[in-house]
C-alpha cells in the first residue's frame, strides 16, 4: 500500500525502538512472554505513531499502560481471553443472522422486520464497541469514525510488521557475510 508512508515509517521506528527497549532479544523470556511483549510493543508503536487525535489511540495507550502494571503480577493473559470472547460473539451474531435470513418476510411482519433490523444493528454495534479500543464511551457516529480510522491504522501496522519480518528474515545472511 502506497498510502501514508510516513505513518508506516513512524510505526516501524517506534516498533523497533520499543522492542529494543523492552529487551525482547534477551533469551530469558519464554516464547509466550516474548510474543505478548512484541504485541504490546506493536500496539504501543501504533498508538504512538497515530498520535492523540483519535479516541482509540488514547484508549489503546491507556490500556497498554494498565496492562504493564498487570504484567508485574502473573496475570493470566488477559488478551488471550479477549479474542475468544469476541470470536464467540461474532459467531453468535452470524448464527443468528443465518437463522433470521431463513425466515420469510411478509408485509404483515414489516414492522417486526424493522424492529429486528434495529436489534441486529444494535447487537453489531455492541460487538464493534468491544473490538475497537475505547469504543465504550462513544456514540454510534463517533464509533463508526473511529472504526474507520482504526481499520486503516491496523492495516498499516500489519504491513509494517510484515515488512519488518521480511527484513529480519531475508537479508540476514548477506549482512553477516559482509561483517
Amino acid at each position, binding site marked *: 500500500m502506497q498510502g501514508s508512508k510516513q505513518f508506516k515509517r513512524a510505526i516501524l521506528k517506534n516498533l523497533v525502538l520499543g522492542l529494543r527497549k523492552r529487551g525482547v532479544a534477551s533469551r530469558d523470556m519464554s516464547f509466550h512472554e516474548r510474543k505478548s511483549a512484541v504485541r504490546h510493543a*506493536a500496539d504501543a508503536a501504533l498508538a504512538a505513531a497515530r498520535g492523540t487525535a483519535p479516541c482509540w489511540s488514547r484508549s489503546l495507550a491507556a490500556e497498554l499502560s494498565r496492562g504493564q502494571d498487570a504484567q508485574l503480577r502473573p496475570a493470566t493473559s488477559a488478551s488471550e481471553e479477549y*479474542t475468544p470472547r469476541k470470536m464467540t460473539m461474532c459467531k453468535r451474531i452470524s448464527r443468528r443472522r443465518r437463522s433470521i435470513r431463513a425466515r420469510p418476510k411478509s408485509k404483515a411482519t414489516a414492522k417486526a422486520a424493522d424492529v429486528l433490523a434495529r436489534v441486529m444493528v444494535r447487537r453489531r454495534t455492541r460487538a464493534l464497541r468491544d473490538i475497537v479500543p475505547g469504543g465504550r464511551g462513544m456514540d454510534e457516529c463517533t464509533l463508526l469514525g473511529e472504526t474507520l480510522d482504526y481499520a*486503516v491504522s491496523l492495516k498499516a501496522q500489519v504491513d509494517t510488521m510484515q515488512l519488518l519480518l521480511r527484513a529480519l528474515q531475508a537479508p540476514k545472511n548477506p549482512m553477516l557475510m559482509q561483517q
Partner: protein
Amino acid sequence: MAATPFAFFTSPSSPSLTQAEPASAHAALDLASAPRLPIRNRHCLPPPPPHPSLRPNPQTPPAPASAAPMRHPSSPPPPQELPAAGAEIQALTPSSSAGPSSSTTPIGGGGGGSFTALLGLPTSQAMELLLPRLAPPAPAPAPAPAPTFPSDPHLVDRAARFSTFASPSPVSPSSPSPTPPPPPAANAKRKADPGDRTSKGKAAKKGKTAAGADESKPAGGGDGEDEKPAYVHVRARRGQATDSHSLAERARREKINARMELLKELVPGCSKVSGTALVLDEIINHVQSLQRQVEYLSMRLAAVNPRVDFGGLDSFLTTECGRLAGLNCKNGIDLEQVTWPEMGVHGARHLMQLQQQFWHGDLAHPHQVASQWEKRGDGHPPVFSNSSSSLFGYDLTSSGKTCMQTYILYLTEFICLSFTSSISGLDHVFLSFALSGVFSKCTDNVKRVL
C-alpha cells in the same frame, strides 16, 4: 482557521486527480459508483475519474479534459499527503488490486468522489480542529515524537466532519466563495446535481439550533447558504418534517450514513452488501481479521527475535528512515552505536529495496519478491515469499473467511515457513507446539514438557 474546514473542499482536487490514470479507472469506478457523500453543490469536488462512459453519477465529463491542463499548475499545499492518501484509497478498494501496475501510479482518480475532496485539509490543521489536544499518554517504550499524522483520507474526512461540528459559525461565509487554489477546477467540478436538495451535506450544519424558522424553507431552492453566524442551518427536504427534532435526527442519520459509506468503501467486499447490519458484520470481521494478523505477526517476530541484534538493526533502520523522511528526531541521535557501520551501505540498500518493494508493491506479487531474492542468491526465500504472499494475498482479499479458517491458514503457512526458514529444528518444533498451545491454551503444559 475558520476557512480551513472548507479548504479541503477546494484545494484537494487538482493534485490528487491530475494524476488519475486509466489503470485506476476500475477502482475509481468503484468509488464513483458508490453513493456519494451529499457534499454541497457549490463546493468543488474533485473531477471524476476519466471514464465518463462508465460513471453513473451526474458528474461532469469535461472534468478529465480539465484534468490534463491542470496537471502542471498543480502545486498542492500538501503534495505528498494527497497522493498518499489518494493512493491509500486506491489501494483500499478491492478493485485496486486488479491494477497491480498502478501501485506506484497515483492515486487520485480514485478520489473521484467526496472524500478525496476532503483530503486537501492538511492533517495538522485538521487535528487542531479536532478534539482538544490532550497531553499524549506516555506509552512506555515509545519515545518517538512521531510528528506527522498519517495522511489518511478517511481520517481527514472525519476530521472535516468533526471540525465542522467544532466550529459551527464562521463556516458558512467561506463556503459561497470557493477558495482559490484551483478556480478552473472548481468550475469544472461543480457537481451538477439538481436532485441534491440537502444543500448542507456534510458541510457542517447541524440542524439543532433554534433557527427552525429559517430551516423550514421547502426544498426547491438552490443552495441558499444562510450566513448567520452561530446558527447551523439545515435545508429541509421536500415533503419532510421540519421541526428541529426531526432535523437533528436527520442530520445524525446522515452523518452515520456517510460514515457507513466510507466504511463500505474501506472494507473489501462490502459494497455489494446492502443493509446496515450486514455491512457492520463485514466491518467487524475485517477488523477482527486485522487484529488476528497482528497477533500472528507478533508471534512470528517473537520467533525470529533471538537471532536479531536489534541494536544494530534499528540504528540503520533509523538512519534509513531519517534519510528518507528527513526526520531529525532525537532518537536518531542516541542510536549512535552503529554496530555495522561499514556494511551500512550495502545493508541499507537491501533494506531500501525491501522497503520500496513492500511499500510500492503489493503482497500479491510474489514474482517481484522472488526476483529480489534471486538477486541476492538466496535459496529458500522464494519459496516462503511465494507461499506467504500467495497465502496472504488470498486471505486478505477474501472477507468471507471464518475465524477458524484464517487461523488454520496461518498455522499451515507458519509450518511451511518454519520448515523452509533457518529456524533450528528444536526451535521450530517448539514454536509449532507453542502455536497449537495458543489455540488450546495449554501453553503451560507445553512449557513444562519441554
